[in-house]
């Protein structure tokens, strides 16, 4: 299934998921807490550029190009933040806050770019294990996440079938006429999935 992961062999790719999560989150947190000064804009931009160049995303300018991709996908968030703050608060907070928010988001994206979903799933299961004393079942949580991941493409196909069926009958494409049949198909799938899980020993 489609993920945000980009294959690679840099040091950030090879770093274990748990420590990597903590490292990236602490950098993001520091950037998020910068005050609304002009200097913040420069620091935020610098940290983001350095972050993407030193994390070993690929040879040459590969990291910078990736940063460009990430920022392009954030263009609307950047525009809306910038414009609303220009209107209400003036240029200095507008530029500083926009740079800070953008840098935090692109730096956090380094986690998904360099870590496989399976590695993060394992990290979550390990991270939840201490909570088992509170009655939380870490293995069941991991199972729940895995089952959901495998269910999404199945329901995606079912949704396409429902849409095709409606198009064939000339129905208009609006939420009510699609969602009700799709929900029924999906919840029937849930019944089958529950039976299948029970048959495999999940209680």
């Amino acid at each position: 299934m489609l993920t945000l992961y980009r294959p690679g062999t840099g040091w950030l790719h090879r770093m274990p998921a748990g420590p990597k999560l903590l490292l990236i989150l602490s950098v993001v947190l520091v950037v998020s807490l910068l005050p609304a000064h002009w200097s913040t804009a420069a620091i935020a931009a610098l940290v983001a550029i350095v972050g993407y160049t030193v994390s070993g995303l690929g040879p040459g300018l590969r990291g910078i190009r990736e940063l460009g991709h990430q920022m392009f996908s954030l263009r609307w968030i950047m525009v809306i933040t910038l414009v609303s703050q220009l209107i209400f608060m003036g240029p200095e907070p507008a530029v500083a806050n926009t740079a800070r928010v953008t840098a935090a988001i692109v730096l956090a994206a380094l986690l998904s770019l360099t870590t496989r979903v399976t590695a993060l799933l394992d990290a979550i299961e390990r991270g939840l294990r201490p909570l088992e004393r509170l009655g939380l079942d870490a293995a069941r949580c991991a199972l729940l996440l895995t089952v959901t991941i495998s269910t999404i493409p199945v329901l995606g196909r079912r949704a396409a079938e429902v849409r095709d069926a409606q198009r064939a009958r000339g129905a208009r494409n609006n939420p009510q006429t699609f969602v009700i049949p799709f929900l029924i198909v999906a919840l029937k799938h849930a019944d089958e999935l529950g039976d299948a899980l029970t048959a495999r020993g999940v209680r």
Partner: protein
Amino acid sequence: MAHPEPLPNRQDRRRLDAKGLARVAVFAAIVAVLGLPGGFTLAGGVPITVQTLGVMLAGAILGPWLGALSMMVLLALVAIGLPLLAGGRGGIGVFFGPSAGYLIGWVLGALVIGLIVHAAGRKPVVWRTALGIFVGGIPVIYAVGVPVQSMITGLPIGQTLLMSSAFLPGDLIKVVTATFIVTTLLRAYPRAFARVWAATPSRGLERV
């Protein structure tokens, strides 16, 4: 181990059985699929995302606890890097962006919707469904979303509220749509709710 048969409506809050697990997984997937491209256009050709419609349905159909859990599952998958939010957004970065609070509000919103729609385990009726979906779907989500957005972007809370009120008309349409869907589903496919209701109160009244 002789388990007493639990009441069908009372999901055991501590333990998630296979059936509950499947329903939670499927609903998280439903909300993800509702955010996929190829979505809908309203009258006038305005493209809309129906992902928040899915949030409203999760609470109303699964009930408070499983509904909230399905939203937590969806957000966990987003956090570990699946692009499941409308527009293909995903990754832990979204929790540092302006919409972080609204996403967390989904969990609380689904919980509140479930609590009101299924209050005291009674069969949902139209007014309670509409009320629950409205309260959990708009005030609750905004109550978490707006302060967090204000905190993240540094824009004062009043102005942030003003900006996000641009989404109110769309959200109100979604409340109406979700209410219509839930009441239709109650008649067309009551199994969707996986609950057993006592005989309708009106019949009881007739006998009095």
